């Protein structure tokens, strides 16, 4: 065997090994010198991982157990752009599977300076699952909840909505966010050699939010919204608002605002239509406020319902002359007739006898100028001018519901107190919070049972043969009051000549009231009178509510009254 030839072969082998180990060293140098930084960042990102365990957000039910707001399973897709080898292909796959715009995704994935970007927040669970099955490197998934409102526009102004981070942004979702949202858990995990959890450090369990049961009845609410929509269209009004209250419990059965919006699609709704005007907006109540003045004079014993006054058509108060709505000669009216005929002159005459201090006390006693304390966020207390700031003519305005700003809810509460034998109950939307004992709503006697009965009788007169005949509901005795007031003119000051709020508020059955309904119509066209624009809506809502709640009629339906 030729040693020289063999040695040449060995030398070649030496060269081969030198080359092979050289390549190994080049590879090591590539990893350790060139790629060291990026790979280090990758390594750091996978060895410790912070995870948020989202708390389940409480479900909101109506009083019948129907879901108004629920948390649906959704999956958030995120990406680590530093791990994505081919952003274009991944963006296409994401776009195809989730139905999102691949161009937007590509832009995100191409930013290699970031280690975390959202690809899709709260994507459809089924679609995201199919994306997960494609096992694309660099994409991550975690479960989240997506808030959904099964009834859409129904009760949207009450319930409000939660945003993409599952935090309440409006309505009860905002007002009761802490209760509903619970608190998210946190976990920092370290992956073990097999990619499973090894150590969990700083674990903090999620505390799920609580379920809420509202006093709202979805059927009633739906009907209220339907009636309000028809009313608003009929009178070409800016808005229509209604409150339906259970006077015995203070629970709000329905609270509607038209125009409304779909809570599932809240970003498209203007802030204007999202307001729950019954709580956040004020109006001048006009004649519906007269019961406050009447309550005061009756309760102080200054007059009785049958006392009579001789009243001219006009009355001069300081520098102003106030007259009744309908021209007439000088008449003698009983206190009851003053209310049922809604005589401004009569009410002011009574108020002058009472004095500003006493009247202000009663206004305060009925809760005006104070928030009702309802759970809804952004409630306004209204505007009540304190007696020391009254001008000479104020005593000619306030007693008849002018120069005072109230919320529909405050007004509904006053009629609720009258309906409930003089005891006002804290109006509320939440009947029960899961896991918490029921706390009875605050009760406050505002007027005596005697006066409440006297007022109820007078208010029945309004509906039977006064300004509120449109509010009659066949088979039931209805008590109520119309109201019409010019809106303050924001441009010229003083009062508008064209913009009015027509309203009607009342309750039924008059002898054992079960439902209080208040309707306001904002800026109706054609006519302005509450008895014309709001009373029919009141009637429609009240009739439906009484039937729906299976309230026995006061009188058997007669052929005559059923014929309408």
């Amino acid at each position: 065997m030729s040693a020289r030839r063999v040695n040449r072969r060995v030398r070649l082998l030496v060269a081969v090994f030198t080359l092979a180990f050289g390549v190994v060293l080049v590879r090591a140098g590539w990893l350790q010198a060139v790629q060291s930084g990026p790979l280090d960042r990758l390594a750091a990102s996978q060895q410790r991982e912070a995870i948020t365990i989202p708390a389940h957000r409480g479900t909101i039910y109506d009083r019948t157990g129907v879901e108004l707001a629920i948390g649906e399973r959704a999956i958030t897709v995120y990406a680590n752009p530093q791990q994505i080898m081919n952003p274009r292909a991944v963006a296409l796959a994401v776009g195809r599977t989730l139905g999102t715009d691949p161009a937007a995704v590509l832009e995100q994935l191409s930013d290699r300076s970031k280690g975390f970007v959202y690809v899709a927040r709260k994507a459809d669970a089924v679609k995201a699952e199919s994306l997960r099955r494609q096992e694309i490197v660099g994409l991550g998934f975690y479960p989240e909840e997506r808030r959904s409102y099964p009834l859409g526009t129904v009760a949207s102004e009450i319930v409000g909505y939660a945003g993409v981070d599952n935090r309440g942004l409006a309505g009860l979702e905002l007002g009761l966010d802490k209760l509903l949202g619970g608190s998210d858990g946190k976990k920092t995990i370290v992956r073990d050699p097999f990619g499973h959890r090894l150590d969990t450090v700083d674990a903090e369990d999620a505390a799920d939010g609580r379920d809420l049961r509202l006093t709202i009845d979805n059927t009633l609410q739906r009907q209220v919204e339907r009636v309000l929509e028809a009313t608003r269209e009929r009178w070409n009004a800016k808005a229509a608002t209604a409150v339906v209250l259970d006077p015995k419990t203070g629970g709000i059965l329905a609270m509607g605002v038209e125009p409304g919006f779909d809570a599932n699609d809240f970003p498209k709704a203007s802030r204007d239509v999202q307001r729950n005007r019954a709580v956040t907006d004020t109006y001048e109540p006009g004649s519906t406020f007269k019961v406050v003045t009447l309550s005061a004079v009756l309760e102080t014993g200054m007059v009785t319902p049958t006392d009579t006054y001789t009243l001219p058509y006009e009355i001069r108060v300081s520098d102003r002359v106030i007259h009744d709505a309908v021209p007439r000669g000088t008449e003698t009216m009983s206190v009851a007739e003053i209310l049922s005929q809604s005589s401004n002159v009569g009410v002011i005459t009574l108020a002058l006898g009472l004095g500003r201090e006493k009247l202000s006390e009663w206004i305060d006693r009925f809760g005006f100028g104070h928030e009702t304390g309802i759970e809804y966020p952004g409630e306004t207390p209204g505007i009540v001018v304190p007696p020391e700031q009254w001008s000479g003519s104020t005593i000619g305005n306030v007693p008849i519901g002018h120069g005072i700003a109230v919320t529909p809810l405050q007004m509904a509460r006053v009629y609720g107190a009258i309906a409930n034998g003089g005891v006002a109950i804290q109006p509320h939307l939440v009947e029960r919070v899961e896991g918490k004992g029921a706390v009875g709503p605050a009760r406050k006697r505002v007027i005596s049972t005697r006066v409440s009965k006297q007022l109820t009788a007078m208010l029945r007169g309004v509906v039977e043969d006064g300004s509120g005949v449109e509010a009659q509901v066949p088979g039931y005795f209805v008590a109520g009051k119309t109201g019409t007031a010019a809106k303050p003119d924001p441009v010229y000051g003083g009062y508008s000549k064209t913009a009015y709020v027509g309203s009607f508020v009342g309750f039924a059955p008059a002898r054992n009231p079960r439902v209080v309904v208040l309707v306001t119509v904002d800026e109706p066209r054609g006519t302005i009178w509450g008895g014309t624009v709001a009373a029919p809506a009141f009637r429609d809502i009240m009739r439906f509510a009484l039937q729906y709640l299976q309230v026995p009629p006061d009188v058997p339906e007669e052929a005559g009254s059923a014929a309408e």
Partner: protein
Amino acid sequence: MTARNRELLNLFVVGLLTACGFASVYLASQDIPEFSTTSLSYAGFFLALFLAAHLVVRYALPLADPYLLPIAGLLTATGLTMIYRIEPGQAFRQGVWVVGGVALFAAVILLLRDHRRLDPLKYTCGVAAIALLALPALPIIGHTVNGARLWIQVGPVNLQPGEFAKVLLVVFLAGYLRDNRELLSMGFGRVGIPSPKHFGPLLLIWGVAMLVLFQSNDLGGGLLLFSIFLAMLYIATGRWPYIAVGLVLFAAGSYVLYHLRDHIANRIAIWLDPWQDPYDAGFQLVQSIYAIAGGGLFGQGLGRGVLLSDSGEPYIPFLETDFIYSAITNELGLAGGAAVVLLYLVFAYRGFRIAMLADDGFSKLLAAGLTATLAIQAFIIVGGVTGLIPLTGITLPFVSYGGSSVIANFLLVGLLLIVSDHVNRSADR
């Protein structure tokens, strides 16, 4: 300076490095660094062990190569230090294996004296090699670790017979190829295409390698055996066609097995893209690459790398066996990793130098085969953990935790030194 004094000096350097290594791991493992002589006593014991090996060589093989033993010593020390850093309990067991390895090393040198006495035993060695390879396939004693059936259990000890088989195979091939060299070298044409009937031995070894692969799922072992064979066949015959046909056969066989066995298919898929499934299938390789990259140029420092989680589990499974190179580079950086690679390269140079100086065919082939074995094995595993070639689970010679591997490699160095002494004696004459 005589070769032995040179060796002694080298071994003292190795002992010093070992002491530094153990001390720094010991210090890093403590919250409040406090010096202890315990770590130094480990190094002292280690040095004593290799001094004993040195004395055996000085007595029996005075003219043997002075670098091979110190290189084996430094690699062993590096391995022990790393294993001590990862899992101190295993370092003790590994130490016992090293003692066993050195004992076998001494026994072979003292008892065998002359490697040529193996020549008549070449067929016995060949049969023994195949028997050892087949052992893990037997029921009861054979068992599977991490998908590869490579182990047998004898009493309380797990052995990997394949590690010894490779040395025996080299002995067999050295004798067989020397005998049949002329026949196998005959060929036609300028490149000398061998006659088809001479492909017999090639096909036989290929068949054995494929069987090993198929039976044990051990891609690394099969590749190692077959590469040793091809390297020795080339040295013996100088015929390229053997190499070409051999490589094609191996590739074809692997391809078929690729489709037959998921284990092998997975290994290839992971190599092509470890990030396809970074937390499951690709986990080992991804973690290995992270660990290597994390080392940077000069490493995190011995004992200070990110290798273990808070609960003491290694981030990379099989860290102290298959992935010990990743651990070394994480803590010693590119510099430390390159040093280890260069040690193998220097070992290869010294080994092939013995082959070139040898004047008989058996010695040449034996030295070249033994050297190639060690170098190929180092390349396969280092290339694997760096993602250069598909990752296969074989040990890094002298460094990885594992008794069979350490003992077999000391046997290999012992044989190589015997050849070296013999070669240098003949050169002196």
